[in-house]
C-alpha cells in the first residue's frame, strides 16, 4: 500500500461523509419516505375533504303523520321522511335522523331529539319554524342573511399547522431515535468510537441531515396545502422557516434524549410512544386544545408540540411576527436546552 495524503475536497470531510450516510440510509428506506413525505399529504387531503365546509348541510328528520310532513317539506334545509311511530323511533335511536316530529291527538307538536347534539337542536328549530309558519305565524321582524366564507377560518386551515407540527415531531424523534438505537444495537456506534471520528460529528450529522430533509418535508406539505386548499400563509415565510428549524432542533434534542440509553429498538419505540402519544392528543393537532378542562391548560401550554403548533398557527393564520410569539419561542428554547444538555450527559456510546 502506498501512503496517500489526506484526500482533498469537502466530500471527504468526516462530517460530510457522516451526513451523506444519513441521507443514503434515509433514501434507501422506501417505507420511511412514505411516512415522511406521502402520509401527511394523504392525511391532509383526507381530512380536508371529510371536513370541508359544505354549503349549508341538509339534516335528515323523521315525521309521524302526513299533516306535519307536508308542512315541514317547505323547509329546504330539512330532508323529511314520513314513517310510522315505531320506525321513526328506530331511525332516531340509530342516529340516522336528527329529529323525530309527531303530531299529538290534541294537535300540538312533539319533538324527540338529543339535546347535546347540535344537529338535533338545529333540526328542532327549523322543523318548529316550518310548522308554525304553515299554521299561519308571521314573523314580526324581517331578516336578511349575508354569507362569509373566507380561507383562514376553515377546518383545513386549522389542520395544516397541526399536521406540520406533528410531522416535525414525528420525523425528528423517529429519525434520530431509531437510527441511533439501531446503530447502538448493531454495535456500530462502538465501532465508530473506535476510529478517530470526533464524536460530536456523529451527532451533528443527524442535525444537518434533518435540517436538509426538513426543507423537503415542510415544502411539500405547505405547497400542497397552499395550492390545493388555498391555506393562507399570512406571516413572514422567513419567520415560518425559523419556527420549523427551531421546532425540528428541539424535537431532535428530545429524540436524542430518548435514544441516549435505549439498547433495543423495541425499548426506544415504547419510550417514543409514551412521549409522543399525549402530545398527539393534547396539543391540538386535530382539534383545539381549548376543549380540555381549564385545570390541565397550563400543562398543555408548556408541551413542546403545543408551543410549536400554536406558533405555527399564529404565523400562518394571523400573520403574527416573532415579537408576538415570545411565550412559545421561550418554551421551545427551554425544551431544546434542557433536552440537549440532558442527552449529552446521558448518552451512551456503547
Amino acid at each position: 500500500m502506498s501512503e496517500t495524503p489526506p484526500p482533498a475536497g469537502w466530500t471527504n470531510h468526516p462530517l460530510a461523509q457522516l451526513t451523506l450516510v444519513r441521507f443514503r440510509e434515509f433514501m434507501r428506506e422506501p417505507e420511511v419516505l412514505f411516512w415522511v413525505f406521502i402520509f401527511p399529504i394523504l392525511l391532509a387531503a383526507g381530512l380536508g375533504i371529510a371536513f370541508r365546509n359544505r354549503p349549508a348541510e341538509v339534516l335528515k328528520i323523521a315525521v309521524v303523520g302526513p299533516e306535519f310532513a307536508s308542512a315541514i317539506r317547505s323547509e329546504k334545509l330539512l330532508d323529511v321522511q314520513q314513517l310510522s311511530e315505531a320506525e321513526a323511533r328506530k331511525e332516531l335511536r340509530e342516529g340516522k335522523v336528527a329529529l323525530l316530529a309527531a303530531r299529538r291527538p290534541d294537535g300540538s307538536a312533539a319533538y324527540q331529539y338529543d339535546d347535546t347534539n347540535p344537529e338535533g337542536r338545529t333540526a328542532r328549530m327549523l322543523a318548529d319554524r316550518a310548522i308554525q309558519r304553515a299554521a299561519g305565524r308571521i314573523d314580526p321582524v324581517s331578516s336578511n342573511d349575508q354569507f362569509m366564507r373566507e380561507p383562514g377560518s376553515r377546518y383545513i386551515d386549522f389542520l395544516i399547522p397541526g399536521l406540520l407540527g406533528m410531522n416535525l415531531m414525528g420525523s425528528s424523534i423517529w429519525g434520530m431515535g431509531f437510527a441511533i438505537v439501531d446503530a447502538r444495537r448493531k454495535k456500530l456506534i462502538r465501532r465508530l468510537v473506535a476510529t478517530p471520528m470526533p464524536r460530536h460529528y456523529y451527532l451533528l450529522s443527524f442535525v444537518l441531515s434533518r435540517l436538509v430533509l426538513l426543507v423537503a418535508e415542510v415544502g411539500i406539505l405547505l405547497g400542497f396545502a397552499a395550492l390545493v386548499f388555498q391555506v393562507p400563509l399570512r406571516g413572514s415565510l422567513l419567520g415560518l422557516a425559523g419556527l420549523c428549524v427551531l421546532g425540528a432542533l428541539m424535537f431532535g434534542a428530545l429524540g436524542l434524549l430518548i435514544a441516549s440509553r435505549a439498547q433495543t429498538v423495541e425499548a426506544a419505540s415504547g419510550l417514543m410512544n409514551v412521549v409522543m402519544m399525549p402530545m398527539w392528543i393534547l396539543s391540538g393537532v386535530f382539534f383545539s386544545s381549548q376543549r380540555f378542562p381549564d385545570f390541565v391548560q397550563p400543562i398543555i401550554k408548556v408541551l413542546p408540540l403545543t408551543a410549536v403548533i400554536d406558533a405555527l398557527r399564529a404565523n400562518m393564520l394571523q400573520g403574527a411576527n416573532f415579537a408576538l410569539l415570545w411565550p412559545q419561542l421561550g418554551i421551545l428554547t427551554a425544551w431544546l436546552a434542557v433536552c440537549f444538555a440532558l442527552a449529552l450527559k446521558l448518552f451512551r456510546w456503547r
Partner: protein
Amino acid sequence: MVEAGLKPALRVQNLRKAYKDVVAVDGLDLEVPAGECFGLLGPNGAGKTTTIEICEGLTAADSGEVEVLGLSWRSDGAELRQRLGIQLQETQLSEKLTVHETIRLFRSFFRQGASPAEVIGLVQLEEKRNSRVGALSGGQKQRLALACALVGKPDLLFLDEPTTGLDPQARRQLWELIEEMKKAGTTIVLTTHYMDEAERLCDRVAIMDHGKIIALGTPRELVASIGIEHVVEFAAGSQAHPLEAARLHDIEGVRDIRADNGTVRMQVSELHRAVPALLDELGRQGAPLTELRTHSASLEDVFVALTGRHLRDE
C-alpha cells in the same frame, strides 16, 4: 514506525477488570514486540475480549498499566486512534450502504491512509465494490470489517475473533489476508477460540482462562511443554476377538492409554515406531481394526493438559 521498533507495540502490566460479580481480567501481563502476530487463545468467557477492548481504549480497566505504541490512552487518545486498526466482535455495518461507501466513510476519519480502492483490492472485494453490505456473505462482511480496520494504515491491528461464525473456506481466505498483513510487517494482536487459527497465524500465543494467562510462548514451545508429541486414536476388536487393551502398554514409547466408548486414545513419542507396533499387536490378537487416526499434539491438547477441559466445552 521507527519508535514502534524500539518500544514494544503493546505492553500491559497487572491489568484487572471486574464486572458486577465476575472478574473478567485478573492480573494480566503482556508484552508484544513490533512486527509480531500475537494471539490470545482461550474459551468463551476467558476474558479475551475484555482484555483487547481495554487495549483498544474502549473499556476502562479497574487497575493496571496499558501502553500502546509507547503511548497511553489517558494522554494520547486522539493520536492512538489515528494509528490503530480495530475490528470488533459482532459489529454489523450499515446494510444500506455499499462496500465502497462504507470504506469511504471510515477513510474520512483518518488523517492519512490507503485509498478506498486500494483497501477493497487488498481484501478482494473488487467485485462487490458497489454491492450493499446487506447482500454480502458472512465471509465478505468480515473482510469488509477488516478493510475498515486497515483503511488508516495502522501501526497496530487488533482483531477480535476475526473468523468466528465463518465457514471453513471463508476462514481460510481470511487467514490468507491476515498472513499478507503479517508479511507487510503490521503488528497484529488477535483473539480466538480456535486453536488451529492461533497455531497457523500467531508467532506467539497466550492461553487465557478465567482472566489469567496460563501459558505463553510460540505454538511450538507450548506444545512441547506438555511432553506429548503425537496422539493415536483407534477402534479395534470384534465379538469373537475383543481387544486386550492391557497388552498395548508393552508397545515402545506409548504413554497414557485411555479407552472411551470403544475408541482408544494413546499418547506416543514416535509415530513411525508406535503405529507399526500397534498394527503388529492387533494382528497377533486377531482383533480387526475399524478406525485409525493420528495427529500431532496441538494447542488444544495444551489447553486440555492445563485445565482438564476442552477449548470449546462451553
